[in-house]
């Protein structure tokens, strides 16, 4: 029991560490752009002292660029805040499409670096499950991370959310890599504990080339 708890903690810390590293890295990029825009304003002021007039239109453009980076940073911090607060309630009713979208946006940079796109097919009606939001986020992250690693560059990882008779499913793929190398499809992280916490199953369909997380409608039932 203690070992299982330790594994949960390690997995959670690792997930949070990776998210924090990824987003803080992105925030430093945002700061770099704001910093360069501030530098450009300084350059203009130095030139103005030398008798070169400042173009007001240009100043407006710089202000717009700074504002855009502030919005970008704000989105990142909101996401980080959402992940942070997902541990507040160990059991909650979760809108799956919303949760998948949050995790996808956090993984977007990772996907870009591999030249892979992520595309969510939302359900026609909202699909909700009563579950542990923090554990579910981690499991979705594990699956997206794995999908990004195994798909070829320039491809898209499709993610579909569907309701089932017993709950819901999140389907990743189709991916050629799952069809061709079925042994190489399992997420590297200790997902067994996560699956146990969520009463979920992770199903690989070699014919379809998909990886599916099957969730019960309520983990307490």
């Amino acid at each position, binding site marked *: 029991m203690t070992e299982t708890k330790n594994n949960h903690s390690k997995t959670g810390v690792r997930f949070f560490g990776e998210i924090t590293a990824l987003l*803080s*890295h*992105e925030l*430093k*990029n945002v*700061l*770099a*752009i*704001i*910093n*360069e*825009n501030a*530098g*450009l304003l300084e*350059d203009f002021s*130095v*030139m103005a002292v*030398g008798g*070169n007039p400042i173009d007001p239109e240009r100043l407006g453009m710089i202000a717009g*660029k700074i504002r*855009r*980076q502030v919005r970008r940073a704000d989105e990142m911090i909101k996401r980080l805040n959402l992940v942070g607060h997902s541990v507040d309630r160990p059991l909650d009713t979760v809108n799956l499409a919303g949760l998948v979208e949050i995790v996808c946006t956090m993984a977007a940079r990772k996907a*870009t*670096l*591999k*030249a892979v796109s992520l595309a969510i097919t939302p359900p026609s009606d909202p699909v909700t499950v009563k579950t542990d939001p923090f554990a579910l986020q981690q499991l979705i992250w594990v699956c997206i991370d794995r999908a990004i690693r195994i798909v070829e*560059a320039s491809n898209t990882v499709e993610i579909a959310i569907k309701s089932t008779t017993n709950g819901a499913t999140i389907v990743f793929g189709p991916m050629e890599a799952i069809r061709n190398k079925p042994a190489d499809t399992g997420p590297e992280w200790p997902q067994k504990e996560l699956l146990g916490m969520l009463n979920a199953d992770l199903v690989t369909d070699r014919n379809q080339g998909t990886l599916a997380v099957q969730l019960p409608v309520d983990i307490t039932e």
Partner: protein
Amino acid sequence: MSKKILIVDDDEDLLEIMVERMRMRGMTVVSAKTASEAFILIEQETFDVMIIDFMLPGIDGLQAIKMILEKQPDMRIILLTAYATIEKESEALAMGAWDVEEKPVDFDRLTRLINAQTGEAGTKLKIED
């Protein structure tokens, strides 16, 4: 003579503004969004200094440094990184990078480094034609 700089970063906003600020300092600047694009440019032209971001789609900055220095061991390469750790810095320097600069970059320091490469004094700001 104008210094010729190749700058590689996949963030278009950052690339655009750094190119502009360097040009305002009289440098000739060519930009690329990936290491693969940079390899093509290096085959075609000679650069005094290359500035490359660590995190790039496909081939990352460290891999690119290794590949470029194998072909052009004298190339001066400055690695930009948004990592706050010194591990990447040490790795890049061991690989032959000329310098590593953490983002947000101190632009004056970067300019001094570039000037040091060509042995020139500081460059004054000028308006582009």
